[in-house]
């Protein structure tokens, strides 16, 4: 078991920790948020969104329901999504006040906005966060928090430099089932932890497709952002998760959640594994498909403590899980159903009923809002998020190079120069800061 085992707190103690303090928002005057002009009329935290596609629409209600949040603006590279997001927010407030911006930099220039939700595609996450930090905004950014490991480190440094309050969208740290599993592992209920095993689903393929003219409602230049220019190909754009320079595949996209959980349970949030490798990778047939990322395979890491991490990419979407395997048992969280299973089953007797599932991000958002006021770090602050992302990023590099890699988490370097070079991709101007 890595790290000290805390006093066994039992079910009631755990339940007590899960009981949220009364949902009375701590209203802090705008002056504390540093706004010029003194106290804001509503004392709410003003938000804007950068990227309002499907993920933003899913998570926005969790923000809109917070009594101390006021949503004032949205920005998006696609005109149809921009209009739809404005409609959603205006309907919530019963007015037509939501501002829209085709260029997120204009949104960031608005003095009245305190914080932003970044829910763009993965290629933009780190860079948009840095733009926001430069503009003095606090950030809630969807995962994965970066595409390359070096841009992740730059993002951490930028947020530290400006005192930016940043929360990564790895909301499972606020989810009851995952918190319970962590508590049981930390209490030693599965014995000495040996392996953290998780599963994400089989990757998709994208057939070959020619470039087409850019649709009128798309600002493709902005959509592409820091990615070096390539022609507009609908399949490549809509299937962006399947290409290295925009998405890096499901072991990264969903795997980052599990890497984050593993780091949290092991209490290694400021370090990471020391070795990475892959096995049994199945790649798309290049004669049929232009997509690049793996369809299936095994992605592994090993910590200096001897604990192993494994991400299997296989099976269906509903089959995803994380399982903590010790020398006396195991405990598993099934992500699709939020069900927790364990051996011995008696572990589950201590599980409190109820609690929020991962699809309810409000606890995670409340943690972010509280940190905006107190300027204390969030639970998924940049360093934590970057370290988790680095795990799947390193797995990607090991997969692409087809070899085992040793990693120095203190220096953040591999033992192979080519791997180190793959930690960075020069961004496209002007979409870099």
């Amino acid at each position: 078991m890595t790290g000290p085992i805390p006093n066994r707190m039992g079910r009631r103690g755990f339940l007590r920790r899960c009981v949220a303090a009364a949902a009375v928002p701590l209203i802090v005057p705008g002056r504390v948020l540093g706004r010029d002009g003194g106290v804001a009329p509503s004392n709410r935290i003003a938000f804007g969104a950068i990227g309002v596609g499907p993920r933003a629409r899913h998570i926005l209600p969790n923000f809109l329901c917070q009594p101390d949040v006021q949503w004032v603006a949205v920005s998006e590279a696609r005109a149809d999504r921009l209009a739809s997001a404005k409609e959603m927010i205006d309907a919530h407030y019963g007015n037509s006040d939501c501002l829209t911006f085709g260029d997120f930099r204009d949104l960031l220039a608005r003095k009245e906005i305190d914080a932003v939700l970044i829910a763009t595609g993965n290629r933009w996450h780190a860079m948009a966060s840095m733009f926001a930090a430069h503009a003095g905004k606090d950030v809630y950014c969807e995962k994965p928090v970066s595409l390359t490991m070096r841009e992740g480190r730059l993002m951490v440094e930028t947020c530290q430099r400006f005192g930016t309050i940043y929360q990564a969208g790895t909301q499972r740290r606020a989810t009851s089932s995952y918190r319970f599993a962590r508590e049981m592992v930390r209490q030693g209920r599965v014995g000495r932890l040996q392996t953290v095993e998780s599963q994400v689903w089989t990757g998709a393929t994208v057939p070959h497709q020619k470039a087409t003219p850019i649709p009128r409602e798309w600002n493709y230049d902005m959509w592409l952002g820091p990615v070096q220019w390539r022609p507009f190909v609908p399949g490549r754009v809509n299937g962006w998760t399947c290409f290295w320079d925009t998405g890096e595949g499901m072991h990264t996209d969903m795997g980052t959640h599990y890497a984050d959980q593993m780091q949290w349970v092991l209490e290694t949030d400021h370090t990471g594994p020391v070795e990475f490798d892959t096995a049994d990778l199945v790649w798309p047939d290049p004669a049929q498909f232009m997509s690049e990322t793996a369809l299936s395979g095994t992605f592994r890491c090993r910590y200096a403590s001897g604990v192993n991490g494994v991400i299997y990419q296989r099976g269906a979407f509903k089959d995803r899980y994380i399982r903590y395997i010790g020398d006396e048992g195991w405990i598993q969280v099934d992500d699709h159903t939020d069900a927790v299973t364990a051996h011995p089953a008696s572990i589950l007797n201590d599980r409190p009923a109820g609690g929020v599932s991962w699809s309810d991000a409000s606890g995670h958002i409340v943690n972010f809002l509280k940190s905006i006021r107190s300027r204390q770090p969030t639970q998924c602050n940049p360093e934590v998020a970057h370290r988790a992302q680095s795990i799947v990023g390193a797995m990607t590099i090991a997969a692409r190079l087809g070899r085992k890699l040793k990693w120095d988490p203190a220096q953040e370097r591999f033992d192979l120069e080519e791997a180190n070079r793959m930690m960075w991709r020069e961004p496209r101007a002007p979409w870099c800061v």
Partner: protein
Amino acid sequence: MNVLSQQWRFLACATLVIASTVQAADTAAQTAPAAAYESGGDCVSLRQLEQQIRDAAGDSGRRAACEAALLRLLDDGSTFEAKRFACSGLAVIGSEASLPALDRLLKREETVGIACLALGGLRSAQAGERLRAALAETRGAARLQLVSALGTRAEAASVEPLVQLANDTDAALACAAVRALGAIDAREARTAVAALRRKDTPALAGAVGAASLRGAEQSFVCGDRTAAAAVCEELLAPAWPVNVRRGALTLLLRNDGDLGAQRIKAVLSEKPSDPALVAVAISRVPALRGEGVSKLFGEFLPRLPPGEQVLMVEALAAREDAAAQSAVRSQTSATDPAVRCAALTAIGEREGASAVDVLSRALTSPTPDERKVAQAALAALKGGEATDQAIIDALRARTGDDQLPLLAVLSMRGGRLPTAELLTQGCASDEARARAALQGLVRIAGGGDATALAVLQEALAGGDNRKQEIALRAMAAWRGLAAWDTLAKVYVHIGDEARRTLALRGLVRAASEADAAPDARLVERYRQLLSGARGADDRKLILSVLGGAAHPDALALALPLLDDPAVRPQAEEAVARLAKALATSHPEAAQAALLRLQRGKQESK
């Protein structure tokens, strides 16, 4: 040398030349498809080159050949996408051998970006020189890309050209140049940025602030604390954007010998205060060392405006020493309700039995929010049963309606003692108190607390009739199946029909919750329920939820009830639901059930 060995030498050389020509031709043939790649075409050749890159990693011999293959894709005749692919590969294995080819691409707007991509991984002084040289031959977006790439490389040799560009009339270019200067860890760069601060160009303020902060960081790291602190002090001026001021203060606090204690005090004492800086300063209080610190900042509390008092209460609470605890407790009687609430919450998160009195007093606050916060804080208190007992003692010391909030607190805490006390209170003659206690037990039932269940089971088996009834009501609301066996005994054996019905309702509710994941064990539970049914009403109630257990055995259980005229409509509905749910997994059974339903309906006509 004899003629024979000369001939052998000639033959060997000729062989080598022919071999390399053939190899070149082979490799050219191999790269030709890749050179012509455009989206829509197959990418077999690209994947082959990627395999070569993989094989070349760590192998200098293979790397040169692979690089040569990629460089062929940079020829003028190649497509843009081929060049882009090549540059991605050169980013991984490229060497100075690639510089001439990349040089050409650096000077064209459509390819400068991918050329910078290729050079991004090449830590070579020559590569930096090529980028700087290309500046003179580019304009607009191309030049911006080059400046950005120079910022990534952060080479001291770039300072001079970047200083010139920082004065360019193109604001975007100038800002990029300033940011790039900030990235360079060199005295000349920091000097240049300092000059830009003095110049005070509004359009560059953000970039200059960021670059200045980076320079200060670099100075701290290399030990030049005086210079670093001087820059930070400059950046604290109100004219700078709030994030720059925050960054400057944070940097100073982090590097102060006392972790910033004196500086925090100074920030809090400043008149007028900078609210953004005050919040940052207070956020550092938890990390300060020494008990004197808590006393010091506790004394600051009354001087702060309410919003900042709230933050200071939270910060002090995080210190968890006696002085901090005392300071936080004192704020439960602050004049501002938000401050009082912050204190109550902080106490609830960190303290135990000794805090029951102070939190209980807050239950009588005239402010509803404060009462709610006090309740939640009492529920969250640490200390296990010692705290439970303290709350029970506080409850018993009160009378009438004053007891009701504490009953709710006990229900939020759950566990052995609270459950036992709620059972006792549920027998009270005071109707409001009895009702509140029962509601509390139902709430505990919703949490599925095993120790609470044990208390209820003991009460049910005990001699107190009233407690038995209350315990049964609570168990009938139990979440999950833990109370099943106890309820089943009541259902099957007890003669009291009211209790029997209550037990059945509880069993049916529990079964319906389990319908989400039906298995053979659940169906067996339904079988038990049906076998214990004493009339049509019982069977109707059971059928109303049996239809939700999508399991073939559940269907088999429901089918015979189609022949029972007293429950036929309920049986039909259950069978229809089950057949629909099982249509994919058990098509034959589902189809047979539907046919039986249809036949039955026809016969009844």
